[in-house]
C-alpha cells in the first residue's frame, strides 16, 4: 500500500470509495490526458466524473483563473459581482426558460437541494415525484429522493417521494414495448399514481441518468409527462448536472430531447461548467425563484474565482462548437463500441448519446449484473492507459464513458481499441 493510500485510509471516511485496487493519484493533466504518480500517461474518458468538460489545463481557463486570482478570489453574494452577473446572463439566455433567474451554488447536490426548496415552497407541498434508478446528490434532502439503493445511505427525509416508471428503457415491465407504447404505459402509470396521492410539488428527473448508468427513456417521455403535470400545476425539474452543456451531442440540454411541451420550470446544472472549479446552480422562472420569503444568500456560490473560470470555459465551449464535436466524435465512438460489443456476450447493451456512453455488462447468457467484470474492465483499461468510470442502479453494472468534449477522432479510436481489448479479457 502506498504511503498516501495509507494516510487516506487513516484520516478519511471509509465510505469514500476509491477506484482501482491500487488507487491512482493524478498529478497533472493536459488536453484529454492525465498523468499518474506512477509516471504513466492516461487517456481520460471520465473527466473526474464528467467535470473536466472542455480539456485538462485548458489555457483559456487557466489564464482567466490566474488573472482573477491576482485581483480578488471572493466577496460573497452580499456585494455586486461582475463575473457572476455576466455568467448568470449567459446561462439565463442559454437555458431556454423564459424570464429566467439564476442562482449559483457550489455543487450539483446543493443546486438540486435548492430546486427542491423552491418547488416545495412554491407549491406548498412536500410530495416529490422522482424516477426509479435516479440520483440527485449526496445532501440529506437529495439522498431522500434518490432512487438508487447503492447511493442512498438513509431513508429519513423531510420529503415524501414517489417513484415513477420510465427512466430505464431496456429493463423493467415495459422494456419489451415499442417506444410509443413505452411512453404511453409510463404516462398511464403517472396518471394512476396522481389519482392516489396528494398533489406533488414537482417531478425531478435526469434526462439521461448519470450514476444510474447512463440510462434514459425514449425521447419525448418527459414532454408527455409534462402535459399531465401541467394539468395539476406540478413543476418539472430537469436535473442537467451530467447532461448539460452539449455533452449529449444532439442537444445543448438533455431536456431538449423532451422539449415539445416546452422547457422545464426549473433546471439545475453543475459539473462541466467550471471545468473543475466548483460551480452549481439553479435556473427557474422568476415567479418560482422569487417565492422564498426569507433571506437566503450563499457565501461561496458565485464567488469571483469560479465565475471567471466558468465564463472562460463556456466561451471556449461555444466558440469551438464542442456540442457538435461531441455529436460527431461521440457518434463514431458509440459505433465503434457497438461493433466491439457485437462480439462479446458479456456486453448487454451499449447506450447513450454524444460523449455520454454506457456499456452494461452481464453474466453471459443472462440479464444478471456482473460487477466483477465491470471492475476487471476498469482495471484492464487502466493497465493499458485508459481511465473510465462505472455505475448502474440495483442489479446492473455499467461502464461509464464521458471524456472531455474536445476529444479527437484519433483519441476516440485509441480509447475504443483499448476498450476492445479490456472487454475481451473478461468473461
Amino acid at each position, binding site marked *: 500500500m502506498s504511503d498516501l493510500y495509507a494516510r487516506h485510509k487513516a484520516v478519511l471516511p471509509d465510505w469514500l470509495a476509491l477506484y482501482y485496487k491500487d488507487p491512482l493519484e493524478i498529478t497533472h493533466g493536459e488536453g484529454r490526458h492525465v498523468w499518474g504518480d506512477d509516471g504513466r500517461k492516461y487517456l481520460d474518458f471520465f473527466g473526474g466524473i464528467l467535470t473536466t468538460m472542455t480539456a485538462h489545463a485548458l489555457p483559456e481557463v487557466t489564464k482567466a483563473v490566474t488573472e482573477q486570482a491576482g485581483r480578488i478570489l471572493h466577496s460573497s453574494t452580499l456585494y455586486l459581482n461582475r463575473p457572476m452577473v455576466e455568467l448568470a446572463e449567459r446561462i439565463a439566455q442559454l437555458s431556454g426558460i423564459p424570464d429566467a433567474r439564476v442562482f449559483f451554488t457550489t455543487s450539483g447536490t446543493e443546486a438540486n437541494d435548492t430546486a427542491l426548496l423552491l418547488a416545495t415552497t412554491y407549491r406548498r407541498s412536500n410530495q416529490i415525484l422522482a424516477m426509479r434508478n435516479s440520483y440527485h446528490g449526496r445532501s440529506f434532502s437529495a439522498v431522500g429522493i434518490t432512487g438508487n439503493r447503492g447511493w442512498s445511505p438513509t431513508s429519513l427525509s423531510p420529503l415524501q417521494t414517489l417513484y415513477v416508471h420510465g427512466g430505464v428503457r431496456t429493463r423493467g415491465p415495459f422494456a419489451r414495448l415499442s417506444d410509443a407504447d413505452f411512453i404511453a404505459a409510463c404516462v398511464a402509470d403517472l396518471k394512476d399514481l396522481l389519482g392516489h396521492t396528494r398533489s406533488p410539488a414537482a417531478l425531478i428527473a435526469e434526462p439521461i441518468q448519470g450514476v444510474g448508468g447512463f440510462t434514459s427513456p425514449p425521447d419525448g417521455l418527459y414532454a408527455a409527462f409534462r402535459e399531465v403535470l401541467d394539468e395539476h400545476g406540478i413543476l418539472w425539474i430537469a436535473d442537467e448536472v451530467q447532461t448539460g452543456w452539449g455533452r449529449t451531442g444532439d442537444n445543448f440540454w438533455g431536456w431538449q430531447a423532451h422539449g415539445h411541451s416546452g422547457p422545464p420550470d426549473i433546471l439545475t446544472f453543475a459539473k462541466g461548467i467550471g471545468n473543475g472549479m466548483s460551480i452549481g446552480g439553479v435556473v427557474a422562472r422568476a415567479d418560482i425563484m422569487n417565492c422564498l420569503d426569507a433571506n437566503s444568500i450563499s457565501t461561496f456560490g458565485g464567488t469571483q474565482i469560479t465565475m471567471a473560470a466558468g465564463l472562460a470555459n463556456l466561451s471556449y465551449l461555444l466558440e469551438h462548437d464542442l456540442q457538435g464535436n461531441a455529436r460527431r466524435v461521440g457518434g463514431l465512438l458509440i*459505433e*465503434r463500441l457497438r461493433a466491439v460489443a457485437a462480439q462479446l456476450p458479456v456486453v448487454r447493451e451499449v447506450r447513450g448519446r454524444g460523449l455520454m456512453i454506457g456499456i452494461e455488462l452481464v453474466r453471459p447468457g443472462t440479464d444478471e449484473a456482473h460487477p466483477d467484470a465491470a471492475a476487471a474492465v476498469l482495471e484492464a483499461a487502466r493497465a493499458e492507459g485508459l481511465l473510465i468510470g462505472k455505475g448502474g442502479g440495483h442489479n446492473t453494472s455499467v461502464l461509464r464513458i464521458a471524456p472531455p468534449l474536445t476529444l479527437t477522432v484519433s483519441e476516440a*479510436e485509441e480509447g475504443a481499441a483499448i476498450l476492445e481489448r479490456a472487454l475481451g479479457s473478461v468473461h
Partner: protein
Amino acid sequence: MATALEPALSVRQVLTLDRVLAGEPEVVAGAGHLDRPVRWVHVAEAPDVGVMLSGGEMVLTTGVLLAGDEHKQTEYIRSLHRAEAAAVVLGLGRAFPVPPDVMRRAAERCGLPMVVLHRPFPFAELTEEVQSRLVRRKFAAVSLSESVRTALTGLITACAPLQGLLDEIAVHAGCPVILTNLAHRVLATAGERSAVDDVLRDWERIARQAGGSEGDGWVRAELSGGGERWGRIVLCGYRGDHPIGRLLAERGAEALVLHRMLHGSAHSWEEQSARGLLTDLVSGAVPARQLLPRARAAGLPVNRRTFVPLVVRDGDPVHLDRVLRLLGLSGLVAELADGAAAVLLSLARDQDAESLTAHFAARLRTEHQAGGTVVAAADARAAWEEVPEGLREARHVADAVADHSAALDLPPVVRLRDVHLRGLVRLLRDDPHVQSFAERELDGLLRGRETEQELLPVLRTYLATGRNKSRTAQLHHVSRPALYRRLEAIQACLGVDLDDFEQAASVHIALLAHDAQQR
C-alpha cells in the same frame, strides 16, 4: 510549380571528359568537394577575378600574373572562394612548372577543388567542350519537360484514364511509378509488372523509411490543389540524373492534379484501385498470391488475418466505406461490374467474424430503413489464397437472392446455406436442358399477350412466399378475390394445378431458371 532543375555537370564529371583526361588532370586540393555543380567555365588570368564571377564557375588559369607573389596567390584563391567558384584549374607550364604549394594549401583550407593539368592544352577547347555540353543538357531538360508535358496534356484532353497518365510517366521514367494518398496507401501503379511487384512487396516499410531522403533514385512530388496536399507520386529507383527525375515527377504531379480537377476526386481514385484489385481477385485471372502485394499496398492488413468476403446488391461503395470506417473495421470496398458492391473485410484472428458481419449488416439496415439491404456473405477465409473463391461464393449468393428479398423476408446476412434451390438453379442456368425445361414449363405465360405476362410477377411472389395467398395479395396490393382470379388465370395458361405439390414445384424451378437467365 518551381522547377529545381539546374542542368549542370559536376566538377568530377568535367574531369572525366576525354578532352580533359588528355591533359592529365590531378586534383591537388579540395578533393572532398568534387560533386559541386559547374554552371559555367570561365578563363581568367586577372588577379581580381573574384569580382567577375557570380558563383558556380570553373575557373581556368595559367597563373601567369600570380607567379612569384605568394601573397597574391593566396588572395587569388580566397577571392575565388568568396565568389563561390566551383573549382580552379591551373595549367602547369611557364608560370608554374609544378603545383604551387601556397595555392594548394590555401585551396585546401577553403575547401575549393584545385586541379592542375600536367599537359595543358588550349583552354578554348575545354570551354567549348564543357559549354556545349551544358547547353545541350539545358536544352535536353527543357525539351524533355516540354515533350512530357505535351504528351500528358494530350492524354488529359483525350479524357484518358488515370492509368494512361501513369503509364506515360513510367515510359519516360523507365522505372515503377506509384501514386499514393497521404497515408501511403497505393492508389495506382505503372511500370514493368515485376519491378512494381518488387516495390510493393515491402511497401509499408519502404514508403515510410524512404521518407525525406531522395537517394537511391527515389523521387517524389506532392499532389496538391486548393492549398491542400492529398497525395504524392513516387518514381521508384529512377536511374537518370536526379534533376531530370525531379522534373519528370513534377510534370507528372501537375498532370495528375489537372486530371483530378477535371475528372473527379481522389476518393474515386482510391475506389478505382480497390475495384481493380477486387475485380482481379474475383475473376481469378491473376493468382491470388500475386495480388497480395497490391492488397497490402492498398492498406488492407493481410498478416495473420481472417478475410470475410461480402457482396451487397445495389450497395453504394462510398456509403459502405463510410460505415466500415465508422465501425472501425478494416476492409476494401468496390463496385463490381454488375451493380453489386464487394466488401472484403480483414479481421484480426481473435475477432468474431460472424457477429461482426451481422453487426455490419444490421448497421446498414438501420441506415436504410425503407429498403431491407441484404448482405451476402461467404464463410470467413483464413488463407488469402481462398479469398477469390469466397468472393465468388458471396457474389453467387447475392445473385441468387437478388430481387426476391421482399418476398423471401431474408435475414440481414445471407449465406450459401440460405439460398437453397435458387443457388443450384443459378449454377445450372447455362445448361441447355434446363433452359428448354424452363421455356416448356412457362410457355403459356411467356408467349401470352401482355396481360398474361403481367401474371409472371404474381406467380413469382406466390411461389416465393410458399403459396401464401394473403401475403402475396398484400405484397401486390390487391384484394384476395382479385388474387384468386389471377391465380386461376395462371393455372389456365400453364395448364397446371398449383395446389398439386409436384406441379407447383416444377413451375417454381422453371421460374427460378427463367429468372436466372435474365441476369
